[in-house]
């Protein structure tokens, strides 16, 4: 198919990916045990559908996502922990499959960016404040005395 030229709608790429005739999680895929099924659901909501645009396999209708959903449930059914299943998928597909990027050498800058930026902003605000305080002239001793006299005078008149 020719690439669609129309992409006026901001959400269109996302919408397009979903326009295939099936639902995401199908009733026939689900596990009998509700606690195990809940674990599978929460795990699959953190895994990326590898062939879609920014969608978890839990929400995706792509056949590959379905395969991975079934794979997860098989492994959970065999008694593997969520971490073990995740580790297996990462060894197979790389970090790309994780919607939450792991904290490591390549991503520390990403994870720390909010703290760094906030710190930078706070620092800038403090410096601006100090400078403003320095520029603003303080009252001289003589002025302070006059001010005090005025206030006193005002008070005594009452």
């Amino acid at each position, binding site marked *: 198919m020719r690439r669609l030229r129309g*992409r*006026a709608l901001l959400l269109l790429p996302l919408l397009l990916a979903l*326009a295939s*005739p099936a639902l995401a999680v199908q009733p026939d895929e689900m596990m009998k045990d509700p606690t195990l099924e809940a674990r599978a659901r929460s795990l699959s909501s953190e895994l990326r559908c590898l062939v879609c645009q*920014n969608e978890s396999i839990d929400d995706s209708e792509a056949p590959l996502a379905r395969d991975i959903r079934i794979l997860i449930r098989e492994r959970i059914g065999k008694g593997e922990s969520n971490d073990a299943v995740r580790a297996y998928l990462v060894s197979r597909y790389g970090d790309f499959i994780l919607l939450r*990027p792991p904290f490591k050498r390549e991503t520390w800058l990403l994870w720390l960016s909010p703290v760094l930026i906030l710190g930078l902003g706070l620092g800038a605000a403090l410096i601006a404040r100090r400078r403003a305080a320095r520029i603003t002239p303080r009252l001289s001793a003589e002025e302070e005395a006059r001010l005090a006299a005025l206030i006193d005078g005002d008070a005594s008149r009452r």
Partner: protein
Amino acid sequence: MIVEIGHFALVLALAAALAQTVVPFWGARAGDVGLMTVGRNAALIQLALIAVAFAALVNAHLTSDFSVLNVAENSNVAMPTIYKISGVWGNHEGSMLLWVLILAIFGALVALFGRGLPARLRADALAVQGLISLAFLAFILLTSNPFERLAPAPFEGRDLNPILQDPGLAIHPPMLYLGYVGFSIVYSFAAAALIEGRIEAAWARFVRPFTLVAWSFLTLGIAAGSFWAYYTLGWGGFWFWDPVENASLMPWLAGTAFLHSVAVMEKRDALKIWTIFLAILAFSFSLLGTFLVRSGVLTSVHAFANDPRRGVFILAILAMFICGSFALFAWRAPMLKQGGLFAPVSREGALVVNNLLLTTACATVLFGTLYPLALEQLTGEKITVGAPFFNLTCGTLLLTACLVAPFGFSLAWKRGDLLGVVQRLALAIIVGVVAALISAAWLSGAPIFAPLAMGLALFVILATLIEVGARAWRPGLTAGVALKRSLGLPLSFFGGALAHLGLGVTLLGLSGLGFGAETVATLHKGVPVAVGPYSVTLNSVGEQVGPNYKETVASVAVRSGDTVVAEIAPARRQFASRAMTTTQAGLKTLGFGQVYVSIADPAADGAVPARLYWKPLVTLIWLGAAAMALGGALSLADRRLRFGVAARASARTLPQPAE
């Protein structure tokens, strides 16, 4: 013929934009009033010309003129008229034309209402506005001409993408663009102030109505897009941290920060440099959003290869305006005089904190959106930055901002009494904390977001109401006097209060997510399936024929106990022209919550696989956004903030410098 007239008008508009850029700027330097007025006329002529071009394209779509490539690719004779019209901007070329049309409308507003502004400031602002227009008109004419002819003309068009055949397309993009492009005025005036090297409170008063318009429409546009996604996507999500959504959130965050900071500048003559910085930032993010969506760099890296000219062209525009303005800022900002001292604990102080949180959230969205692209370019490693990352980082920052908001609203200017405010808001604080604790206990084991949002939401709502009450009434006043006093409060105060209430309401809607229920099941006729406090039963499945589609409709009854509270009809539509299927969720609003049913294709035995949701409070998410936008409109109705009032007032009070 009409199509050629449209094309020609667009070329003439480019010439008008060129005149608007060069002549007033030159006039301002030479001190020639005659040359400066040219900018005003050029802006009005440009609007007229672009309107002609836009009307010509609308006409081509309405008459299904398939000899025009744009119409042939995006329209169809069978389409309902409303989609023929909204289809004009349901494609790349047409949406860019809408973009420049709105840009020209805002430019004309400055031309019409800026009469009393300092002449040089207005001339420079119109020149910058003209330059933006020039760049985008050149982009359209050189790389994305909507008037391109097609020979031989096909007998039938390819149809508008079925997903776009929805009333959402008539609302969402125009509103979003009104927001995006509205910030261009703010940007142009910031650049003009920097060129002048001087800025005063009158600047803020003139820019504020434009900011309010842009911000309100952007709020509505984002909310409309989110609601549209909610009912078409079929799993009840409404925000996905998708790159294209992030592209619209970034200008909103920067714009919200700007809106608050410009208020400080107007009232207290403080934070000038910061306000100018945010003004540049807000429009830069609008441009970045346009680039990300239009170039396709995020959807697929190959979009550049498809039509490299487009991506590179927009990138060049982006670089010119962002780098140019920040260079100007670095050069000129130190010359601007700062004014208006304030203590750290004051309304200004709280607004600075909120500004920092909002801009940090904005920068985090930017980082998260672009980081995977940069990492792949630099190291070849592919990572994904998805919803869990954004929920954690931006969620924390924005919830903190919500916590600070009521304090900022209640603190006094210049030097505030934090203890006094805490005492005044004690009731709201207690209710918030108790609500958070109760819901945390109720949802024990679930993520902490819902209880936190619940507590914060009630705190924000109550604190805002208390503040409104405290302004009108104090112990000893009769109700009549209080009413009189409250009528005397400025509309902009009520606007701010309504916007903060809206924020609380949206938060309350978000907190409801934690209390919802989801059931994935196969529906068999007559067999009830439970979802939350309701049960859902399939009555029948039928086929229907629409104007340009066929649909499979399930009729479903929603029961509470034994009483039927609603009959809803989720459907799947098949569009033959593009061989695509779309989902139409079945929705029923019960109180503020909704029952949501979305179906897949029925099996041979008539059983229907379905996803059922009970989403308590979900409508509050969008109602809150509407209240925020209405708050913006209310502020705009304030006598001080109407278009042009500031300009007229400043003309009376501020003598023009001798030139």
